[in-house]
């Protein structure tokens, strides 16, 4: 494409945008609202997914040793556990530590467990984390088969249900985001179709004079890109400001850990901008061909 043409196309696009102020405004608003909703949905999904990742990674296996297992045996069990594929971390919890933990969770003042129980009834144990939390049930089963392991727990039932829930939350949010993107494309296509419709006589004339399809299309593509990215820019500003103030306010409410990594957010904002341009191009593409059939 020649430079001269690019300048002409951009000029034409700008002229058309200025000429149809109302339509321009309507399309930019539509685009920015769509992309804002899309951005909010993605942010919620990102946060939910981080939250779920955390929940999932908290899932651990506890393997209790037989009461009379010797120190060397305990050490060899650790090696056997480590050799199981998918195990990330193995931590030894002695029976004394276990008792202290129990004491702590009951409250120090009420009972003195050590005094009440003359002999520590708790066994030594291992806390095991897996690389992929979804492998927990499988790995737990294999640990249970090792010699000197008395019992294995990992919140059976609860873990499976948690995974079921997180799976559905992810599926539903992907579906919703897809739906919103589809809606955005449809709305932008409609507004650009109106812009094209307003200029159908001009397009018809251009065709009869001998303009190529590409020549007619380009200004509309540029128009679509400008509309889409402008709309995206507005929504990104709103989203960024809104989210930033949310982070500040939520700081005190520590129970909901928000994503605050500037890198992740930057990637999100740039993706939204690209999405805006892409929606603009796609909207134009859907709308224009019908008018070129002269």
């Amino acid at each position, binding site marked *: 494409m020649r430079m*001269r*043409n690019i300048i*002409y196309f951009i000029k034409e696009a700008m002229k058309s945008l200025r*000429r149809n102020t109302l339509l321009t405004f309507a399309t930019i608003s539509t685009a920015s609202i769509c992309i804002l909703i899309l951005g909010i949905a993605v942010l919620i999904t990102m946060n939910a997914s981080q939250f779920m990742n955390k929940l999932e990674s908290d899932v651990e296996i506890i393997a209790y040793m037989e009461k009379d297992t010797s120190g060397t045996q305990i050490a060899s069990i650790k090696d056997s556990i480590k050799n199981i594929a998918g195990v990330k971390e193995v931590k030894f919890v002695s029976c004394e530590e276990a008792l202290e933990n129990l004491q702590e969770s009951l409250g120090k003042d009420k009972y003195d467990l050590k005094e009440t129980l003359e002999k520590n009834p708790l066994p030594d144990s291992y806390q095991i984390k897996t690389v992929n939390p979804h492998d927990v049930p499988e790995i737990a089963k294999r640990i249970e088969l090792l010699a000197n392991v008395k019992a294995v727990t990992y919140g059976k039932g609860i873990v499976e249900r948690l995974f079921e829930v997180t799976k559905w939350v992810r599926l539903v949010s992907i579906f919703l985001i897809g739906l919103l993107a589809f809606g955005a494309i449809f709305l932008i296509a409609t507004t650009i179709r109106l812009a094209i419709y307003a200029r159908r*006589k*001009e397009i018809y*004339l*251009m*065709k*009869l*004079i*001998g*303009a*190529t399809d590409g*020549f*007619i299309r380009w200004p509309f593509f540029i128009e679509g890109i400008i509309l889409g990215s402008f709309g995206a820019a507005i929504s990104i500003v709103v989203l960024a400001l809104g989210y930033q103030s949310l982070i500040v306010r939520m700081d005190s409410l520590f129970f909901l850990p928000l994503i605050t990594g500037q890198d992740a957010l930057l990637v999100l904002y740039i993706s939204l901008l690209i999405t805006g341009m892409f929606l603009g191009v796609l909207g134009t593409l859907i709308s224009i061909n019908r008018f070129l059939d*002269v």
Partner: protein
Amino acid sequence: MLVQFYNVSKIYPNGVKALDDISLKIDRGEFLFLMGPSGAGKSTLIKMLFREEKPTRGQIFIASRSVVRMKRSEIPSLRRSMGIVFQDFKLLESKTVSENVAFAMEVVGARNHEIKNRVPEVINMVGLKGKEDAFPGQLSGGEQQRVGIARAIANQPLILIADEPTGNLDIDTSNEIMDLLYSINRKGTTIIMATHAREIVKAAHKRVIMLEKGRIITDDSSGDYAL
């Protein structure tokens, strides 16, 4: 031969037979009138020339190129060899006279300096000097048609095609427009014009093709056709 029609028929999708077995030849530099009652198929025939419509049967050649077999991507170059003048002018209301003419050159990718030179030249040729910056709404019908003609000849077409160019104009204005077309024709441009205006055709002594119900009933090159 510039234009050749061989047994061309056109049946519209709704079943109307607009052209029925038309064969004709048009030479370079000719001035040809297409006449006939309303619905005879004049506009349909004209649309075949720049392939706004495709024939149902038959072949059309323009400058030895088949218009019928032409690929979609070749249509722009066909149309660039023609200028089209419309009954309703089809000017862009938001553009000035100069801009309307320049538009025709821009969309075919003419260079800026060519446009700068050519636009005043054709505006001068059609007698609109001084009206360059007027908008179509500020012009009379005759003046608007002059803009339409200026736009049609801006790219120096081989053929000028006009479908009832004087259809919306009074007799005096029509004659002025015709004088303009004759002068363009004298400079070598082939002109094909559909019209209902008998007085114009009678006075012109040019070739006349009479259509009726999609068929050629007379093709008189003397122009002394029986009214």
